[in-house]
């Protein structure tokens, strides 16, 4: 992680005020082959397009090994804490996500960052708030995003 949180969101009122706004963008993180190999071991996804460097050099339509889509997604929470931390609440939990699209392959060795916006903050009626974050994963050498998702977190006041 290269930068500290650029933003603090101070409580639920501040969160609600930021609906529709961009919150910020993280620093860059490098996704190397070692990280991809570790991720393959723990998730059981050893598909050759991720881990077989030699075969990818010869056969891959992407010109080399690429990161698992779920690895890109899983880097999101830590990158998002770097963008903004929600203060003045007791906790937020990963509630789920909608509309994850892996729009471009991320080649091993590339750098990745996360742009965060806030699409909605809805009161659930039980005191909790469901925040719908707009996540856009970007890489240096590509204009269009690598992945987009609507990330849902349930926030306890």
């Amino acid at each position, binding site marked *: 992680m290269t930068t500290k949180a650029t933003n603090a969101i101070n409580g639920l009122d501040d969160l609600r005020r930021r609906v529709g706004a961009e919150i910020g963008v993280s620093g860059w993180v490098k996704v190397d082959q070692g990280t991809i190999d570790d991720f393959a071991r723990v998730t*059981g996804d050893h598909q050759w397009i991720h881990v077989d460097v030699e075969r990818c050099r010869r056969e891959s339509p992407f010109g080399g090994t690429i990161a698992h889509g779920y690895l890109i997604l899983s880097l999101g929470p830590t990158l998002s804490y770097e963008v903004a931390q929600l203060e003045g609440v007791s906790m937020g939990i990963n509630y789920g996500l*909608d509309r994850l699209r892996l729009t471009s392959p991320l080649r091993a060795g590339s750098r990745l960052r996360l742009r965060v916006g806030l699409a909605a903050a809805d009161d659930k009626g039980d005191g909790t708030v469901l925040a719908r974050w707009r996540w856009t994963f970007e890489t240096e050498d590509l204009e269009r995003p690598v992945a987009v998702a609507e990330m849902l977190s349930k926030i306890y006041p």
Partner: protein
Amino acid sequence: MRFGTLDDLVRAAPTGLGVTDWETISQHDVDAFGRSTRALEWIHLDGRKAVEGPFAGPVAHGFLTLALATHFQTQLLELPPVFFGVNYGVRSARFPSPVPVGSRVRATGTLLEAEPAPSGCRILVELRYERAGAAKPPCVAEVITLVVPTDPTPEATSP
């Protein structure tokens, strides 16, 4: 379930795909996942502190549970020869209950949709996870996979 041809796959939807084997999610798995994704929160990694936390012990990352989807789908759905699957995205995923470290999980799969797409097809698979001993599923996900040829011919790749 095994599909010999692309047409078999497209014609079969919607259909049940059965249930996977159980997978145990160990502290070692959770630690390795935390290292590779830089998600090192105490609620996942620090057993001593997590005992005092909301789940009375360390729990797996939600995205670790979700990321098992690829492994589970491979068990449940054998693609036609000369095709392979590329993860295109997730229509929705929810984590209704936690996965305490040491739990066993498995998933029941349903092929919801299979639509022809350029040079292959696009499939939508629901994976409903189950945790041994728990009533609520730890994860319900609808995963989109592009099924593409391993060795694309010029005809197959032209627009």
